């Protein structure tokens, strides 16, 4: 019993910042516009009854980010570094997806699955490339993935043959927005599926313990028989799967692949989501749930700013201010100072009473 309360406290400790952030954003929005989070049912172009509202667009819009954040958390934990090539890799995965779709005469369920598998494989290969540089050659992740960051979008452009091809199909449309008969956006359902898959992975394998061990003390992990190279490589390959899924959602939303703009700057947001989720960017212990909440915090912030009529290009500046505020509140130094201040106040109050 006693242990459990300790655990709860420990768990909340890491999730304090993301939860406070969500709470602040919710309160702020409710004050600004009490109807901000209202959900309505509308009918889309295809005549399906679907849910609509700011809350839905926040949860829907953060889908790609949330999926990437899951993979990024693993890579961060195992390698003490981040993959900055996820946006570029997603562009490649998306391009492969479209290329395979276009190679057939018509787009059926089968071709979509085939395209998904191809795209997934390619993303995993690029993940393995990054992973090999990191795990075998001992290069810091950020440097290793800088290579793919530099040339990934060009490779995507090359795959597309110098164009931005479009795909039109009800199936693709369903992946990107709503499937007939289901009022919840498809990307949200995909996030739930991916999350469940990862939870199952953690439940049926010892990945979590091994990854944390490698991230905290590689040398000790090796001497306990852990194949550290494999664990690091695996984290990058799993991130590859996430990248491919995110890329496909991105492509399906627009019905086209644009190597320049698909998931632009998403790597920064994904890393940010990991950090806001209370995970140390220095690796080691991690919580997937934190990163997912982090992703929604970022998206909620963006949507809030849009709702306040901030133009999409200017959003970054405001986002930066909020990020800084969040990390300053979360900074150990500030926490310590604050605790000291409170103590002094208490002492002063007591002193006053005594007098």
């Amino acid at each position: 019993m006693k242990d459990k309360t300790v655990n709860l406290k420990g768990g909340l400790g890491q999730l304090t910042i993301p939860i406070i952030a969500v709470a602040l954003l919710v309160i702020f929005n409710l004050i600004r516009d009490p109807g901000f989070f209202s959900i309505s049912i509308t009918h889309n172009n295809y005549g399906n009854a679907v849910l609509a509202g700011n809350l839905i667009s926040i949860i829907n819009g953060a889908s790609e980010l949330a999926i990437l954040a899951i993979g990024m958390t693993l890579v961060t934990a195992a390698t003490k570094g981040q993959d900055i090539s996820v946006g570029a890799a997603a562009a490649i995965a998306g391009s492969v997806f479209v290329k395979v779709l276009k190679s057939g005469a018509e787009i059926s369920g089968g071709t979509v699955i085939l395209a998904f598998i191809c795209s997934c494989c390619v993303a995993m290969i690029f993940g393995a490339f990054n992973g090999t540089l990191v795990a075998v050659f001992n290069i810091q992740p950020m440097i290793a993935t800088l290579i793919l960051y530099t040339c990934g979008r060009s490779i995507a452009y090359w795959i597309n043959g110098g164009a931005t091809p479009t795909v039109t199909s009800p199936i693709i449309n369903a992946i990107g927005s709503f499937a007939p008969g289901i009022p919840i956006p498809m990307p949200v359902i995909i996030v739930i599926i991916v999350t469940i898959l990862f939870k199952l992975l953690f439940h049926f394998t010892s990945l979590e313990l091994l990854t944390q061990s490698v991230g905290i003390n590689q040398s000790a992990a090796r001497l306990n028989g852990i194949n550290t190279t494999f664990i690091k490589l695996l984290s990058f390959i799993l991130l590859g799967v996430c990248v491919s899924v995110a890329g496909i959602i991105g492509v399906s939303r627009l019905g086209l692949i644009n190597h320049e703009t698909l998931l632009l700057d998403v790597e920064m947001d994904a890393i940010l989501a990991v950090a806001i989720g209370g995970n140390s960017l220095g690796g080691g212990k991690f919580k997937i749930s934190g990163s997912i909440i982090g992703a929604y915090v970022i998206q909620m912030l963006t949507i809030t700013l849009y709702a306040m009529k901030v133009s999409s290009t200017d959003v970054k500046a405001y986002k930066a201010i909020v990020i800084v505020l969040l990390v300053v509140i979360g900074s150990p130094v500030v926490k310590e100072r604050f605790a000291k201040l409170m103590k002094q106040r208490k002492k002063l109050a007591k002193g006053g009473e005594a007098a």
Partner: protein
Amino acid sequence: MNDKMNKKKEPLTDTQLLMTITICIFIVMYVLAMLLLKGGFLHAQQIFDLLNDNASLIIVSCGLTVVMIGGGIDISVGAVTSLVVMSCILYLNKGGNVIFAALLALLIGLAFGLVHGLLISYLEIQPFIVTLAGMFFARGMTTILSVNPQKVDHAGFEALRNTKIEIPWLGYVAKNGNLVPARMELGVVIAFICVIVIFLILMFHRLGRNFYAMGGNQQSALMLGINVKRTRFLSYIISGILSGISGFVLMMHTGAGNATNAAGMEMNAIASSIIGGTLLTGGVGNVAGTFFGTMTLTTIKKIVVSSGLKDPWWQSITTGGMLCFFILLQSIVLGRRQKKKQA
């Protein structure tokens, strides 16, 4: 054993070794380009063109190298450069003074460095996150200032911008028989001054050596009596100021600015530093190496274009390939060294 070692010449330090590799590869690459591609590569102007185009990149790379030697990272440099360009243009177009514009550039850079340094060293927040926020802020501010492209319309500035240093003896005789002297922009001079000043600080100033010590082992640096917090703070200040200077130099080069100015410059700067032999883990690196790193990076792009690979994707694919080559090479060379030491 020791006597034997004493007779041998001192082996290169890691920093010197990596820098030497870069310089050698740059020279080999350039000579090969001269022999195989000929064309522009035979003229000295080619090098000056590279310098003219990349003066601002050289300057930010220097700042980044300083931060990286200290064991940190600053990914805001490109965005700050862009913000400086935009602010200075708007200020000049309102009838401002060139000197004040330069001061404005420095001030903006300093402000970013100040905030980054405070948050990173005194509040102990991860540098990646802080400078990422700085990058977002600078990019956002740039578009808030102006979404539309702006062009400088200021007589005094135009005069400064058109001032070029001509070096006749490095020129060549054109087809019509006229001597075309080699031309160098003022920005290049500023870049050289920055490189030299930072080089001197890193090599011979107490602060510079403290950067190395801090990057080599932070805990040790503290124990050795170095004020680590202040040292780290100053590294971000230097990077900030250099970003400011870089913005002004970029404006002198382009005379115009838009929201996507200097896009991707931070990653180019990181790549330059790495190719130049700076390790992200800190403690190893040198701005002279960084200078050659930038030149290597930009030369390869030029070579790709000159050798007829006209498709737009080849430039960055070869850049990526080359980055991969350098990163692997460094990893192997340093790995071997460590093994040798243990044996």
